[in-house]
């Protein structure tokens, strides 16, 4: 397969770059969502939705994808200490956008020991919680091909995206105070290339193409796994977040939590929905009404003024000619 420069979205990650110069085709007209931008103009065209499929059953845990990610994004994850597991670094960091997570599972049905290795990273949710939570206009955008991207010049480093994401993905850098996560190699996709991780994967456990193609491919993988005795094999494409543009084939799709805590039914937390929804609308309305109301009330009604009589009374009191106490106070 080769990459056709006339296609709006690349169809594969395995092809080599075209030799002719390519124009970047992800522009402002391709945005379907932008953080804190309620009046975003509609996109000028609809790109073909893309997806990355991670077939966990084919992964050998070699971390070629992780290396390719750091290589392409030019990040230098800190070399950490070996604590007796293969995960390195020990978590996603602002410099490590994808992480192989290793879990050891003793299957009670078969008695087999299984090494479940999952490539963790941004899911590129159709309904992204990070984008919903972000307060900075244009700091998180979603393209019509499904990619969710962080635009660093607009990011303020508040960490709200961390609060919004159902998958615990964004990381805020301690040095430049910007949010980082997998970009689905938007800069490669824009010029017809698939993501670096998919290109590097030696077993093609990571494949890339249109969402439609990837779903069809995933079906064949599930069928194959079922024929090999994995009765619960299935696709993990969480509908709670509207489906995702990175999704998995799992041998135990009935128990996603086995794979280093992949959430069972991820969705944007109702606390986040309540915070970004009614709280903002009602809060702003209440503050507006109170501010305008008190100004109007102040202008239209009589103020509480001290009278000359009050002053005289006070003088008498201070002079010792004390006026009588009011009866109510004699309790």
């Amino acid at each position, binding site marked *: 397969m080769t990459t056709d420069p006339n296609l709006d979205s690349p169809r594969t990650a395995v092809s080599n770059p075209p030799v002719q110069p390519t124009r970047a085709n992800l522009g402002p007209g391709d945005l379907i969502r932008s953080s804190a931008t309620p009046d975003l103009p509609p996109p000028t065209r609809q790109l073909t939705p893309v997806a990355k499929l991670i077939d966990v059953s084919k992964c050998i845990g070699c971390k070629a994808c992780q290396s390719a990610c750091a290589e392409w994004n030019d990040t230098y994850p800190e070399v950490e200490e070996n604590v007796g597991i293969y995960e390195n670094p020990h978590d996603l960091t602002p410099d490590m956008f994808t992480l192989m997570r290793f879990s050891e599972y003793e299957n009670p049905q078969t008695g087999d020991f299984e090494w479940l290795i999952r490539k963790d990273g941004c899911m590129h949710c159709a309904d992204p919680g990070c984008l919903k939570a972000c307060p900075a206009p244009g700091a998180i955008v979603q393209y019509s091909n499904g990619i969710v991207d962080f635009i660093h010049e607009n990011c303020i480093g508040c960490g709200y995206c961390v609060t919004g994401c159902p998958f615990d993905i964004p990381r805020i850098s301690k040095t430049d105070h910007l949010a980082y996560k997998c970009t689905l190699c938007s800069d490669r996709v824009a010029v017809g290339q698939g993501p670096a991780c998919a290109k590097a994967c030696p077993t093609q456990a990571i494949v890339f193409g249109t969402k439609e193609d990837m779903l069809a491919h995933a079906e064949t993988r599930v069928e194959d796994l079922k024929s090999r005795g994995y009765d619960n094999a299935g696709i993990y494409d969480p509908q709670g977040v509207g489906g995702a543009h990175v999704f998995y084939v799992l041998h135990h799709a009935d128990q996603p939590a086995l794979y280093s805590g992949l959430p069972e039914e991820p969705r944007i*937390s109702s606390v986040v929905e309540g915070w970004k929804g009614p709280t903002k609308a009602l809060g702003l309305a209440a503050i507006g009404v109170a501010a305008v109301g008190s100004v109007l009330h102040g202008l239209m009604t009589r103020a509480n003024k001290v009278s000359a009589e009050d002053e005289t009374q006070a003088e008498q009191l201070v002079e010792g000619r004390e006026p009588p106490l009011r009866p109510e106070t004699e309790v």
Partner: protein
Amino acid sequence: MARRMFSAAGDHIESRQPVTVSRYRGFTRVNHWVTAASLIALLLSGLALFHPSLYFLTGLFGGGQATRWLHPFVGVLLFFSFLLLFLQMWRLNLPRPEDRTWVSQIGDVVRGDEEKLPELGKYNAGQKFVFWAMTVLILVLIVTGVMIWEQFFGNLVSIQVRRWAVLIHSVSAVAIILTFILHVYAAFWTRGTLRAMTRGSVTGGWAWRHHRKWLREVAGRREGGPAE
């Protein structure tokens, strides 16, 4: 003089003709205005992140990144500044029986019919409400604010707790802004009040009209203690 029930240690008759009564010493006034300035800075910087339509307010602080880091620091300043105010004022803000009567006759309060109301100490129930609302809300805001302070406390609490913290922080922010509006409005509407926090004193008539028990005590007319 007997133990003061309705006034603070420094309150005194400043001049006799016309009568002016000293209500806040210089330290308290500076303390109050530092608190007020930090509250206003917090309100503007917080609202900038609260709603996209107010994001332009980040311009006041030198951009989004600056607003983001400044806000929590001002929050810490507010906390300690208010703590000082609290220590000076809490005793006279404790509830008293006449507060109940005052609240039940809120109509007379709004109409300015103060002759129908009981005599009051240094603070009326409305002022006490503002005081305690600020106290509780600032406590909630500092606790939840630290929990969502990405720069230094990004790993302090779990993400789920952080979601609640940011929700509670924004609801409390709305509540404290409403309280703040009430406070400012009351200070304007009750003419003659502002000078208590600018010049430090009020006129005798003001004290007679709004805080008569306080005036009686300060004038030294009630040395035998209150009627209660």
